[in-house]
């Protein structure tokens, strides 16, 4: 019998050395969790392109307005309602304001709404869900019942009500010298931050609670308890870090939702204060003039849609990367 050209000698039938075998028994070291996630994410072209576009959108919104010769509120006399040109790549609006800089600046506002609102969501959601899941029992069932109640009504109604209430309240509040620092941000913007921020945390809370419920039964929590760690410490050090994956994914999907909600509010007349632009505000301003000035609606709508799209695609990709079971 031949084996790859060599004769079967007695030598080959000697026992395999022990050291060689030991090396073989331990399979190659597994990648750490996050490196594994990153490796899977990198393979997902759609998610990576989306991530690139997200970074680009942020960069343009932050740097763009600084490079423009105009500011978002500059009214150029005699250049009103111009169609896109080299001078004004996105045209100008009815007051002669450059649309490009307004869209870029609007990006700052819209993105900040997405991020600030999501951050508020996360803080409330994580704490609420964490406490509910960790304490368990009666407290858990009452807290979850409250969630159910809030969830059964469209959050848009709360957001509208809250904005209706907050805007004038904050306006009068910012008149006080103590809070005058906020005045420049505008009561409209801040009321949107808060209204969206305190309305959309239910999803996060539920996810965190679910994770905590399953995690807290696991051995390492018992081990931590045996070492004398207290409740809050276990919650913050051990449980919440293990929920990071789902939390990031939810956030990724909540940012575009908040931007979407803001555009809706602008349309209803509860948006940020003029002349500060937001994508939603720009788009809803343009709706009336659609017949003659199509481009005024086009660019802000594109900005919203592309942002929605890339955040959603990246969020999906991230979710798949975090949960290898869904991997195709």
């Amino acid at each position, binding site marked *: *019998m031949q*084996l*790859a050209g060599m004769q*079967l000698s007695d*030598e*080959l*039938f*000697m*026992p*395999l050395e022990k050291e*060689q*075998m030991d090396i*073989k*028994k331990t*399979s190659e070291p597994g990648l750490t969790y996050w490196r594994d996630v990153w490796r899977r994410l990198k*393979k997902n072209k759609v998610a990576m392109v989306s991530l690139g576009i997200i970074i680009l959108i942020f960069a343009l919104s932050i740097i763009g307005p600084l490079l423009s010769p105009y500011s978002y509120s500059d009214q150029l006399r005699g250049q009103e309602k111009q169609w896109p040109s080299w001078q004004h790549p996105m045209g100008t609006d009815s007051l002669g304001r450059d649309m490009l800089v307004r869209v870029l600046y609007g990006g700052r506002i819209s993105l900040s709404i997405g991020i600030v609102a999501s951050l508020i969501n996360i803080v409330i959601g994580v704490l609420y869900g964490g406490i509910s899941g960790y304490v368990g029992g009666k407290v858990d069932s009452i807290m979850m019942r409250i969630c159910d109640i809030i969830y059964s009504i469209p959050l848009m109604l709360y957001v509208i009500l809250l904005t209706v209430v907050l805007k004038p309240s904050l306006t009068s509040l910012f008149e006080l010298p103590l809070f005058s620092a906020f005045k420049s941000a505008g009561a409209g913007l801040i009321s949107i931050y808060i209204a969206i921020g305190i309305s959309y945390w239910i999803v996060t809370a539920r996810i965190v609670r679910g994770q905590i419920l399953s995690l807290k039964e696991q051995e390492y929590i018992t081990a931590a308890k045996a070492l004398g760690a207290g409740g809050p410490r276990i919650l913050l050090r051990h449980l919440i870090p293990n929920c990071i994956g789902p939390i990031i994914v939810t956030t990724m999907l909540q940012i575009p939702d908040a931007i979407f909600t803001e555009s809706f509010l602008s349309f209803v007349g509860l948006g940020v204060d003029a002349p500060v632009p937001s994508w939603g505000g720009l788009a809803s301003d343009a709706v009336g003039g659609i017949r003659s000035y199509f481009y005024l609606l086009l660019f802000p709508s594109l900005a919203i849609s592309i942002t929605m799209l890339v955040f959603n695609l990246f969020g999906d990709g991230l979710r798949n990367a975090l949960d290898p079971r869904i*991997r*195709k």
Partner: protein
Amino acid sequence: MGKLLEIKNLRTAFKTYAGEVCAVNGISFCVSHGEAVGIVGESGSGKSVTMLSVMKLLADNGRMVDGDILFDGVRLNDYDDRAMQNIRGKSIGMIFQDPMTSLNPVFTVGNQMVEAILKHNRIPRQQAWQKAVDMLKLVGIPNAEGRMKQYPHEFSGGMRQRVMIAMALSCEPKLLIADEPTTALDVTIQAQIIELMKELKNKINMAIILITHDLGVVADICERVIVMYGGIIVEQGKLDEIFYQPLHPYTVGLLNSIPRLNLGKNRLEPIEGQPPDMIHAPQGCPFVARCPRAMKICDMAKPEYVEPSEGHGAACWLLLKGHRGEM
């Protein structure tokens, strides 16, 4: 006894993110009419994939790369899905590991049984219903008529597995494939299900292929045993031969890792290490890394399957060690 099922050099591969991976790598065996054969091996050894290849029920990313499957003298390779539908359920019945998820939760048990009977028999619905009731009685479900109208979630795990068996047998198949039928059940229920299968095997003359990782279950009903590891058959033979004259170190390891009261041993010997990663398939014997008797050659080339005695053989270099001159 003629051959009912004959598998020749079957290779089945799955597309994964790391390319195409062979889960079953060239296996051949036969099952005769009325014979009970056990296929034993750890999870991932390719036992289920082999049987799903026979049924042509592989997941979308899997395909049969090579080999022949002959059932009752017919080559199943040539059958398309429509033709296979007349084999599945009618000539070959199959039951699965987890009875909790193997029945559709939104239809009554009766509905699911009757549809199988109607698919393969031209009989009125009334008669099919009666047939289903009879089958449920046969597998020992009390109040069969009433149970027909209930949903799967109203049955216990053991009862569901009985329903699965009744359903698989309702068209009197020549071959029953049982894919780990007792793994998901409580130990006491396991014994009942095994007892039931034994009883039914004697009542209806059908062949059984029992897939399991539990040698105890095999000892109970099987006449022949096939031991699989890493996508190949490492050893096969009659029940006694496997239990008392195992040839392959893996079989020896399996036997040492089950508790046996009569041998007076008080230590179980586990097989050290993990099954091979099929994505980075080893070039030598798949068991080399865990084999207590591994030799240099084991790491370099796959051993061929040889049968020192009629019907009992293994794929191991140890067998070839003594016979080198003759080959």
